[in-house]
Structure formats: C-alpha cells, structure tokens
C-alpha cells in the first residue's frame, strides 16, 4: 500500500494524568524519535480527576503523524489522543503578549494596526505598549510581522489551545 508523502500540519489533543514526569515523557518521545513540535501547551483541565490537556501542533507525512498518535497512545498515563485536524472542524486559539516601543508616528501606527487586529493594550508607558492579542496562529504571525518595523521589543506566546466544534467532548 502507498501512503501520502506530503508534509501536513496536525493539531492533536491529548488527555493525560496530571502527574510528575508526564510532560517529560511526551517531549522525550518527540525528541527521541525526531518528530517536530511546532507548539505544545499544557494545563490541568479537570482538578477532580487530576487530568491535564495537552494541545500539540506537529507536522509530518501521513505515516509519521500516524506513528506520533500511536506512540503517544502507548504512554501509560495517557488517556485519550485525538487528531483534531482529521476529526472535523475545530477551533484553535493562541494568545500573545507583544511589547512595542516607539514614539511619534510609529506609536500611532502601532495603535491603529492593533485596533484592526482587535489587540488590547494591557500596559502602556510614554514610549511603549504591551498588546494582548488572541487568535489563530497565522493572525498572530501577521500582527507580529507588522509590528517589526514599528519597534517590536518582545513577544510572549502561549502556544495553541484547540477544541473540536459541536457538542461532543474529548
């Protein structure tokens, strides 16, 4: 049988026991087997059952993506592995805090663009802003690119959180 050799980007949701070492297992798996991590976020989502949710964005051929999911499922503390990219529509969001320093025209232009992108100002001095922007990765990329000539100083991004559309849970 032939499988596609095209490189695709996939968003994968993983439900894990929130115990020490789980993240190291996941990251060790990716580095040990040479898989890409484009983004990885993790936080506890169910304090009662002590479950955390990891959202992973990774890329590879169809065979590699299949391997990644199978290898993740093999880790003992992992409950569920779901490939949001193949399972249907999903929403994915990322938050970034972006520091831009400048005065005069550049400062005004930064504010104007922030407005178009619906970025909020969360801190301000006479010569700087910190913007907070939420959206898809490419929207954040575009905003950051536009800020570059306007005095971009610092970027902090959360990485992607994603969830399937509709009424079903993980």
């Amino acid at each position, binding site marked *: *049988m*032939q*499988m596609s050799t095209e490189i695709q980007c996939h968003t994968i949701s993983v439900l*894990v*026991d929130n115990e*020490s*070492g789980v993240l*190291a*297992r996941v990251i*060790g798996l990716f580095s*040990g087997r040479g898989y890409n991590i484009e983004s990885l976020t993790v936080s506890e989502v169910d304090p009662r059952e002590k479950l955390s949710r990891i959202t992973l964005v990774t890329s590879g051929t169809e*065979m590699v993506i*299949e*391997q990644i999911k*199978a*290898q993740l*499922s*093999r*880790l*003992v*503390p*992992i*409950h569920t592995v779901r490939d949001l990219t193949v399972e249907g529509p999903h929403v994915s969001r990322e938050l970034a805090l972006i520091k831009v320093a400048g005065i005069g025209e550049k400062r005004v232009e930064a504010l104007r663009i922030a407005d178009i992108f619906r970025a909020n100002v969360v801190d301000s001095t006479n010569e700087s802003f910190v913007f907070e922007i939420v959206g898809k990765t490419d929207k954040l990329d575009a905003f950051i690119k536009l800020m570059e000539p306007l005095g971009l100083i610092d970027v902090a991004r959360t990485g992607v959180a994603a969830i399937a559309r509709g009424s079903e849970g993980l």
Partner: protein
Amino acid sequence: MAQETMSGAKIVLKALVDQGVDVIFGYPGGAVLPIYDELFQQNQIKHVLVRHEQAAVHAAEGYARSTGKVGVVLVTSGPGATNAVTGLTDALMDSIPVVCLTGQVPTHLIGNDAFQEADTTGITRQCTKHNYLVKKSDDLARTMHEAFYVATTGRPGPVVIDLPKDILMLPAPYNATAKVKHKSYKPQVKGDLKKIEEAVKLLANARKPIIYGGGGIINSGPGASQLLTNFARTTGFPVTLTLMGLGAYPASDQQFLGMLGMHGTYEANMAMHDCDVMLCVGARFDDRVTGLLSAFAPNSKKIHIDIDPSSINKNVAVDLPIIGDVAHVLEDMLKIWKSTQAKSDARALEVWWKQINDWRKVNCLAFEQGSEIIKPQYAIRRLYELTRGRETYITTEVGQHQMWAAQHFGFDKPNQWMTSGGLGTMGYGFPSAIGVQMAHPDALVVDISGEASFMMNMQELSTAVQYRLPVKVFILNNMYMGMVRQWQELLHGSRYSESYSEALPDFVKLAESFGAVGIRVQKPDELDGAIKDMMAVDRPVLMDILVDQKENCYPMIPSGKPHNQMLLGPVAAGTEAIADEGKVLV
C-alpha cells in the same frame, strides 16, 4: 479487603510473593538494604546474586523469555541503577517483561546530588515501557502491582520502580489485591472480526501466500504457536520466522522455510520478495528483515496482526492491520476460515511450492567441513544433533555465532531460544542462560558464544558456580570480532581496524580458576566427544572451540539491497557488494 500495615520493604516482598515471584536477580547497596534485610528473613523468594547489575537484567530476561513469566531485578541506587540501563534497553527492544526495583536516596534528599543519587526515572524513561518513583508510602503497594500489570500486558516490556530509602523503612498499608484496573492503560487483545473476515478472504484467494511470524507469537504464549501451526497446516501456506520468532513454528516441519532477513535463507527471502499476500503475525518489519524498503515484497497485499498500534505502518504501509493479541486473532481467524468454508487455491499453491522447492535446492546454508579445521556451522550442527534428546535451551551472544546458531540449530518449540535481537547486546547470552537455568534446573542450557562477547559478562562464571547452575558456554572462538571483520571486508577494504581478539585468556584455565570446567576443542573429530563430555558434567562448563578464523556468515542481504539480491557466498575481491547508499546503514 484486608489492610495490614507493615514497612515499605515488607510491602515490596509481599507484593512480589502475591505476584507469584519465586526468584529475583540482584545486587545489594545502601539504598536497598532494607529489602535485603527482609529477604534474609524469609524463604519464599530466592535471590540470585549476580556480579554486575547488567547481568541481573539479562538473567531476568532469560528467565522471562523461557517461562513466559516476569523477570524481577533488584539493584541499588546510583551506579546500581545506571549499570542496569543496557539490560533495560535490551528488554524494551525485544518486548521482554521485566520489573526492575531500584533503590533511591530518601525523598528529602532527592535532587541534592546526594551520595549515590542518580535521576533514575529520568535516565530510564526512554528505555522502559513505564517507570515510577514512589514518593508516598501509601502508593507503594498499588505501584508494585501496577508495575507487574504494565510489564506483562499488551506489548510486554521493562518497568522500573524507583524506591527511596525512607519509603522502604516507613510503615504503610498493604492492599492484598493483586488485580489491577488501570484508568488510562487498556491494551486491546481481541481483533476486529470484520477485518479478520477480510483477511480470510484475501488469504483464500492468494496464489503466492506467505506467513511471516515474529517474536509477538512467543510473547502471546505457547497457545499462539499452536494456533499458528494449525493455521499453517489448514491452509498449506509456507512459514518463515524472524530471529525473535524462532521456535514459534516447528523448524523440522516441511512448511518451514527458515529465518528470513539479512542472514535468513534464500528460499525465505525469495518467497517474501515474490509473494502476493503476506500474513505478518507479531513481527515488526525490522530493517534487518525488510532490506531495501522500496523493494520490499513489491507485489503483495499485506496483513499485519500486532498488539501495538505503533508497530503498524511504522516502516511498511500495510493493507489490512489487525490490532490484537496473536492467540486471540489466530483463534478467530481459524474459526472464520472453517465457518466460511474457505479453501486455499490448491492449484496455485502447488505451483508456488514447486518454485519454493527450486529455491531450496540452492542449499544456501551448505558448508564444507574438512578434517583439519572446525567450521563454526559444523559445531552448531553437532550441538543440535547431540542435544536433540534433551530438553535444551539456547541463548546467544551477538555476532556471527548468533547468526549461525539461528541458521543451524532447529527449534521446534517456543521459549527455548533466547537472543538479543533488537539491541544486539554482546554479553547478553551468558547471564541470560543463568536466568534460564534458574527457571529450568534440570534442562540443558547452552550459551552459544563468541570469544569477544563472552568477555563482556564473564564475571558471571562466579554466579553460575555459586548457585551450582550447570550452564554451558559454547564459545566459537575465531579470534576475531567476526561480525565486525565481515563488515570490514565488505565495506572497508578488509582493513581490520581493532577487530582482532588480541590477548585472549586461556579459557580452560579461566574456567578452572572460577571452579568451573574448561574444555578446549581443536579438531573436528574431537568435537562430538567434547560435546558429550560437556553434557555429562553437572557443573558450569566453558567450551573453547577453535574454529575457522576466516569463515563468514552467508547468505547475506547486503545493506540497502532487496531480498532478491542476496549474496550466497564471498564476493570476488574488488567487486562492490554494497553501494554508497547502503554504506551509511548499520
């Protein structure tokens, strides 16, 4: 549920007993002294004191592989744990169930670079199926039982439990339950019946079918081998096995084509290359087996039975994956074959078998035994013939001798062949034989060895002597790291860089100095007598068999070549057996 309170060390031992453990392999040290103290005060569990922690793990592997039970290891913190790493990696690669208890500094010192502290869970995370650090006494009993559950179910593998010394001393409750239900870990054993029906259809229509079986059949238990044999007999299909699968189908059967892969038989590899339907049973399309991937069985539909979804489509994309345990799936497959009255294509099979028998006529394993120098193949043939009447277990080290053992020793039953396949660990065979002998005190256990490999764990002679384990080491002494030398001939213009076994000990005297028996054999006509002497001695024996130093292991698929381009013997000097793309491969 009965809840008793006792010290952590007592809990460890009680859990072992409740899991049915009767022997453990270990080496003491400060961090595990509380467990050793408990061992001293009981007699349900026998402890085998090895001479190096790597050997403890290999011994546990041998014990596990030859019994189907878990092998248990006990080592101290720091160097004890790091010495065990090679064994753990070996068990992971070959899917062997092992539980390894490691000592750890007390919880309040963890992270302080305390004496003999090592980040054992960090170091072993990538070389275990799973590992635990027990930080709370209350978790100890559950963790012990869970470790056995994880090690033995699904695709088996090694599990480490890191035990801080304070946890071993403190009292804690013991839950008597040995049955574990896990929240997230639930391996699937039953195969999807629809897929099995599809597989039956594909197989019944096959014109050139082949069954390619592997270590998963052995993992699944003796019943799986029996079912495979039934299925092969019912269908009349040819069977080939991987190095790890040997014994899963009787070697003496007409339908058996021998091992496949790099040093497999001509008939097995040609049949793999030309087949139209392949039934892969518990094997993982390893690179030693597939050869050049793009030319691997190019015209076949592939069915793959495996319990681990990550083995499916890893190297080779298959048409019909069936996730489940070999025995469960084969049982359903046989039932469906019978209930649907499936029939193999008898006419097509006749043509196929005629072709296979033509390949067999090449007689690819032939060698010429003269009257002066012992051929290594001959030594193994004689060992095989002379031990046929006895319950015999064979372990090996790694190298040419290992491949000759796989080619020339026939295994008719599972669990009698223990070798390091995935990691290829020199030094595996001798301690592994010790583990096998512990489990089968009356059987004949032979480590087929090379002179270089033996020296990697020869300190275990002392263990064998101490416990009166009559293991036999059958050294095919070619004075070379033969496998390395063979590759240097093929790839590096016969420049034998560091592959000569210089300054070898006198193995006979070596054996004697440990209190074992040493026998040297130099001539072909001495061999039978020496093997009989070896078998007659009820003590550890070291056989130093001086064999042809220049012999190489054939047939061979050179790296980067497909199955149908095997080398059947030495290539003429100056010919390039391996192209540049192949040279980067290992």
